[in-house]
C-alpha cells in the first residue's frame, strides 16, 4: 500500500483481496450466520443419530425437559456429552490449525500431520508398557505430555534454520518425527500382547469413549489455549507481514511466537489427549475460513473455532450413520475427507496462500 499524503483525507485502505469493505463485512457476517446455523444443525443431528435414532422433535423435547424417559436419558447421558466433546475438541483442533498456519506462514500445517498424534500415542504406549497404566485418567496425562513434547519438537526442528521454514520441510519434519515415534510405539505394542490389546483402540480419533471427568480435567487447558489464541490474533496479523515489519509495527515477535506455540500445545495436546487425535481438521477449516474472511487472523480464528466443531460433529454423524449399528471413528472419517483436500491444496497453491 503506498503511503498516503498527509494533506489529503485518508483514503479507504485497499484490502488485500480488493473487495470493497462493506461487501467484505457483509460477507463475513453472512458467513458467520451460515457457520452458526451449520453448527446448530450438526449438533442436533449428532444428538439425534446413533444406534437408537431419535426424531428431531423428540430431541428438542428431551433437551428442554429432563423427565427420565428413555429418550431423555439417551440425550442427556450419552449424546449430549459426546456432542459437547465434539464441539470442544473441534474448536481446539481448528484454532490450533489456524495458529500453526499463521505462526509458520505454512498453509500445509496441521497438528495431526505434524506428528502430535504420534507423540501422544507413543507416550501412552510407554505409560501402558512400562508404568502399568490402566486408568483412562492416566492415559490423558501421558497423552497430553507426549502431544506437547511432539509439538515443541516439531517447532524446534522446523525453526532450526535461519528464517522461516518452507511449508514442505515442516510437514516432512513432522512426518519423519511421527514415523519414528509410531515405529517405537509399534515395537512396544508388538513385544507385549497386553499392551497391544490396550493400545489397539486408542488413538483412532474417537469422541465416543471419553467420560465427563476427563473432559473436565482437560477443559481448563483448552480454554486457556483458546483465550491465548484470541489475545494473539492481532499480533498474528502483523506477523503475517514478516517479522521485521511486525517488529517495527510494535509487535513483540518473539513473545507472540512463544505464546503461539504454548497455545498450540495446549489446544492440540488437550484435544489429542481427549480423542487420540483427529487429523486434517486443523488443516481444512482455516483454509475454508480464509476464503470467506480474507487474511484477517481475528476472523479466521473465530471462524475456525465455530466451523471446526461443525465439521467434527458432521464427520462423527457420518461415521455413525454409514456403519450402523457400529460406528466409524470420527478421526478416520476426517482423514478420508481431508487427504483429498491436502492433495488439492498442493496441486493449486495460489488459491489461499498466506
Amino acid at each position, binding site marked *: 500500500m503506498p503511503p498516503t499524503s498527509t494533506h489529503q483525507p485518508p483514503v479507504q485502505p485497499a484490502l488485500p483481496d480488493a473487495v470493497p469493505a462493506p461487501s467484505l463485512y457483509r460477507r463475513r457476517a453472512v458467513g458467520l450466520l451460515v457457520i452458526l446455523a451449520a453448527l446448530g444443525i450438526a449438533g442436533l443431528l449428532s444428538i439425534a443419530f446413533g444406534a437408537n435414532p431419535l426424531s428431531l422433535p423428540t430431541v428438542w423435547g428431551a433437551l428442554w425437559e429432563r423427565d427420565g424417559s428413555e429418550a431423555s436419558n439417551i440425550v442427556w447421558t450419552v449424546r449430549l456429552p459426546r456432542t459437547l466433546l465434539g464441539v470442544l475438541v473441534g474448536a481446539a483442533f481448528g484454532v490450533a490449525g489456524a495458529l500453526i498456519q499463521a505462526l509458520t506462514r505454512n498453509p*500445509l500445517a496441521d497438528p*495431526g*500431520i505434524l506428528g502430535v498424534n504420534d507423540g501422544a500415542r507413543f507416550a501412552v504406549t510407554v505409560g501402558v508398557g512400562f508404568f502399568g497404566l490402566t486408568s483412562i485418567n492416566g492415559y490423558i496425562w501421558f497423552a497430553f505430555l507426549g502431544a506437547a513434547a511432539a509439538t515443541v519438537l516439531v517447532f524446534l*526442528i522446523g525453526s*532450526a*534454520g*535461519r528464517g522461516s*521454514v*518452507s511449508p*514442505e*520441510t515442516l*510437514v*516432512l*519434519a513432522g*512426518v*519423519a*518425527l511421527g*514415523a*519414528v515415534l509410531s*515405529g*517405537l510405539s*509399534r*515395537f512396544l*505394542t*508388538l*513385544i507385549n*500382547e497386553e499392551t*497391544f*490389546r490396550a493400545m*489397539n*483402540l486408542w*488413538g*483412532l480419533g474417537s469422541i465416543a469413549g471419553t467420560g465427563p471427568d476427563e473432559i473436565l480435567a482437560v477443559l481448563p487447558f483448552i480454554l486457556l489455549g483458546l483465550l491465548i489464541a484470541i489475545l494473539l490474533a492481532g499480533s498474528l496479523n502483523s506477523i503475517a507481514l514478516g517479522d521485521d515489519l511486525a517488529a517495527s509495527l510494535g509487535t513483540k515477535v518473539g513473545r507472540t511466537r512463544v505464546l503461539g506455540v504454548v497455545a498450540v500445545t495446549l489446544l492440540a495436546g488437550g484435544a489429542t489427549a481427549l480423542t487420540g487425535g483427529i*487429523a*486434517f481438521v486443523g488443516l481444512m477449516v482455516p483454509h475454508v475460513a480464509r476464503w470467506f474472511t480474507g487474511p484477517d487472523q481475528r476472523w479466521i480464528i473465530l471462524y475456525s473455532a465455530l466451523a471446526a466443531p461443525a465439521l467434527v460433529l458432521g464427520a462423527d454423524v457420518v461415521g455413525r450413520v454409514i456403519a450402523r449399528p457400529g460406528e*466409524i*471413528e470420527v*478421526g*478416520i472419517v476426517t*482423514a*478420508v475427507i*481431508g*487427504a*483429498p483436500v*491436502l*492433495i488439492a491444496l*498442493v*496441486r493449486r497453491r495460489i488459491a489461499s496462500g498466506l
Partner: protein
Amino acid sequence: MSAGRVAFGYRTRTLRSRWVSGRVGLRSVVVSTALFLTALGLGAVALTHGDYPLTLQQVFAALTGAEQGFERTVVLKWRLPIVIAAVVFGALLGIGGAIFQSLTRNPLGSPDVIGFDAGSYTAVVVTILVIGKGGYWWVAFAAIAGGLTTAFVVYVLSYRRGIQGFRLIIVGIAVSAMLVSVNSYLITRAEIEDAMTVGFWAAGSLARVTWTPLVPALAIAAVLIVSAALLAPALRRLEMGDDAAVTLGTRPGPVRLGLIVTGVATAAVVTAAAGPIVFIALAAPQLARRLTRSAGVGIPAAAGMGATMLAGAHLLSLLIAQAYRPVPVGLITLCLGGGYLIWLLIRETHQRYGLTR
C-alpha cells in the same frame, strides 16, 4: 590412457574391451567394493548370533561342509537365507532409492515416501483380515499389487505439468494418511491374533524368510540388478535434462518408464518377501554419495550402502534380541532412517537447498 585426457576432478580408469567400454571413477569403485565387503562381513558375523551361538570357525566349517550335524542345519537352513536376504534386499532398496532420487532430482525421493509401503500395507490388511487369506503367496501378491496401485495413483495425482518432487511427496503423505486410517479401522475390528499377525508383517521383518520364498525373490532380484546396470548410463544422461539426453542418443520416455518400473519393482520384491523395510531406499543413496563424493547418486555405491545398512540393522536386531527382546529389523531401519531424515531436513534448511517452490 590416451593423450587427450579430460580432467574430471577425480581419478578415473578407462575400460576398453570388445563388448564393453567405459570410464569408471576410481573412488566410487573402491567405495562400492568396500561397502559390499562390509556387508558380507556383517552378514558373516550375523551368522554366529542367535539362540544357538556359534563361533566364526564353526560357521565357516558349516558353510564349507566340514561340519555336518545340527550346526549345519542352523547355519544353512535357518540363518543363511536371512543373511542373504539382508544383503540382497538392502542392495535392491539402495538401487530403488538411487533411481528415484536421480529421476526426481530430489534427495527425498524414494518408493516408500511416495506411498508404496502404505499401499501394500492396506492390501495386506484387506487380504488377511477381510478376505481371510494369510498364506505367504497371498500376502506377497497383495503387497505388490497394493504398492504398485498406490504408487501409480500418487504419481497421477501429483502430475500437473510434469512431476515436481515435493508435490509428489506431499501427495504421497496425504494418500498414506488416508490408507493408514483405513488400516487402523480394519485392524481394530479384527480378532486380536489376526491383528497382531498384520502388525508383525507391517513392522518389516527378515525373521520369517526361508529358502522357499527367497529363491524366486533372488531370481527377480538378479533380473532387476541387470536391468538397473543396463539402464544406469541412460540414467546419468537423463540427469542432464531430457534435451541433452536426446542429443546423446537416449530416448527419455521409454528409458524413464523402464527406470520407474525397475525402481518400484525393487520395493515390491522386498516388501513381498519381508514386509515394508522403510527408509533404506531414502538414506542409502545420499550416504553413499557423501562417501564417494560424486555429483549424483551412483547406483553401485547406493546398492553397497543399502546392503551394508540392512546387514547392519539385521545384526543390530540380533544383538538387541540377545540383550532384550526380538526387534523386527524394519523398526530399526524406521527409527534410524527417520532420525536421518530429520537431520537431512535440518541440514537442507540451513543450506537453503532443494526448496523447490
